[in-house]
């Protein structure tokens, strides 16, 4: 009995050892970013400073917030992204349910298409799609500069890496026993009813994770939005402009690499804060949903 206890403690220790080591690998580059965001230009020139600034300052965050117009652009980006992501998770779970639970001609082919959306280099379909937007459809609408193409893609489950989410959810829905549906059908529940009251509650925890994934993909890869809505000032537009714009703020020369680096690192911290908040919120929801649903797997 005692040796078993020691063995368990050893496994525990080994686990912590490995996990802490890998965590350090992940956190180190981020830590450097945070530390740079606390530095001043004088710290770069001071040879005694490697990681820790002489007098840490939060002033950079103020500067970065002014540069990014943080409040305004963040709100604007969220107002665009949250509805898009909600549409995507809805369409992805519906499509995944259809692919997982129904046998119809072309099911496998359609699933192949889902995978195809993941592995086609996006520029293949993007450029022609973009060109066609100027007069789109039979009525020749000009959709350039409107958010409509983005919403169109989201409704169809074609947003950033949506194929992966469909794949994950399909794999999950496939795991339910067939009898569950048959029993529901005998009770007179249609397949929409089955989807809403049996499938979805069971998939709650996975759906929350998938929503988080969708949001993160869209947030960190704003290519679509940048192409369709180039004239609007979102937070990623501001962030990307750090690399390109010559003079960043009035009174600062564009050649000031130190200032540029500080501004960049600080802005990146501000940029990923919403994601961390979302993750922590989603985790709490995740724990609740597992406890309340009672139907996992």
């Amino acid at each position, binding site marked *: 009995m005692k040796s078993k206890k020691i063995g368990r403690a050893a496994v525990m220790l080994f686990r912590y050892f490995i996990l802490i080591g890998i965590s350090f690998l992940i956190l180190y580059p981020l830590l450097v970013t945070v530390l740079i965001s606390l530095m001043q230009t004088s710290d770069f020139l001071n040879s005694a400073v490697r990681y820790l600034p002489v007098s840490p300052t939060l002033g950079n965050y103020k500067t970065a917030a002014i540069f990014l117009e943080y409040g305004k652009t963040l709100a604007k980006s969220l107002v665009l992204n949250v509805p898009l992501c909600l549409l995507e998770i809805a369409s992805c779970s519906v*499509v995944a349910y259809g692919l997982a639970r129904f046998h119809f001609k072309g099911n496998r082919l359609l699933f192949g298409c889902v995978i195809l959306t993941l592995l086609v280099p996006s520029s293949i379909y993007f450029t022609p799609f973009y060109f066609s937007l100027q007069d789109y459809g039979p009525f020749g609408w000009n959709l350039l500069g409107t958010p409509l193409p983005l919403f169109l893609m989201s409704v169809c489950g074609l947003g950033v890496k949506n194929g992966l989410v469909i794949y994950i959810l399909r794999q999950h829905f496939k795991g339910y026993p067939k009898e569950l549906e048959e029993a529901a059908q005998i009770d007179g529940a249609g397949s929409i009813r089955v989807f809403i009251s049996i499938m979805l509650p069971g998939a709650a925890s996975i759906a929350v994770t998938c929503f988080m994934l969708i949001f993160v993909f869209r947030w960190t890869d704003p290519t679509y939005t940048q192409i369709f809505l180039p004239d609007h000032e979102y937070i990623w537009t501001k962030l990307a402009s*750090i690399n390109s714009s010559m003079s960043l703020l009035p009174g600062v020369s564009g050649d000031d690499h130190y200032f540029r680096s500080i501004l960049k690192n600080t802005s990146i911290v501000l940029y990923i804060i919403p994601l961390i908040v979302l993750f922590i919120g989603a985790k709490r929801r995740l724990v609740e949903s597992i406890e309340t649903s009672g139907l996992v797997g």
Partner: protein
Amino acid sequence: MKFKGQEKQSLLISKRERQGYFFTAPFAIGFFLLILFPMLKSFIYSFNTFEFDGSVKLIFCGLENYRRALMVDTEYRQLLLETVGNMALSVPVILVFSMIVAVFLNNNFHGRSAFQIIFFIPVIVSSGIIPMLFENDIIRNSIINAASAAGDKVSSFDTSGMTTMLLDFNLPSTLVKYLMYAIANILEIVNSSGIQILVFTMGLKAIPRQLYEASSIEGATGWENFWKITLPMIMPQFIVNITYTVIDAFVNNTNPIMESINTYNYSKFDFGYAAGLAWMYFVIILVVLAVFTGLSNLFSRRYQ
């Protein structure tokens, strides 16, 4: 002659079929209009060059774009070989690594949720806009690299000592080389395992506890449990991960070929050539993916 019951059943199937079409319709329509149709157009682009004089003009040039990619553009060929080679090496390591981490994270222990948050960070910072911003941040990179020059290495390890030691133990040299490859590229591997860890975690969570309890009563060890219960139960996630890892290695925006395609497409506006490059790349991805899924199907069938 048809029996009544049979007719009813066939009617039922066709209803199910109709419902299947109904649920998948959004994707099917969207795929046809927004992906397939533009893709065909892009295929035509790849046989043309573009000219801009007020309006966009397509000029047919036959296989010129493909010839240019394979014969003239020496960089493309080399990048192609490098990408395929790197991918073949890294996919197994990423899968094993993310599986180990997911299994570690699956049990209850102190600080588990903190670790879960940390292991999600690579998903945020390793693709999209952020690595692009970091790439030309000379000052940040010098701070990170100064650390590795000073001895506390982060991004690369000196593995020669370890190699000699393992070879002294009479381990096969290919295995040792491969292990050293994994160790030397650990940062990259960790950074591209975020999604895979998440997918495995989802799969592990769905395994009913009773299975483990029953087998423990029968006297099975944790090691046996892993091979007899955990692995078979997360086979579906395993296949998702293989597919995704191969795809991600190819079409991640930080991949050099994707970078060059994107440059031709979005900055140089050489749409015809970009389409040619992308189509050739796409065919190669398809072939590699087919090989990998074929292998994994073989593996999972033998396993069951």
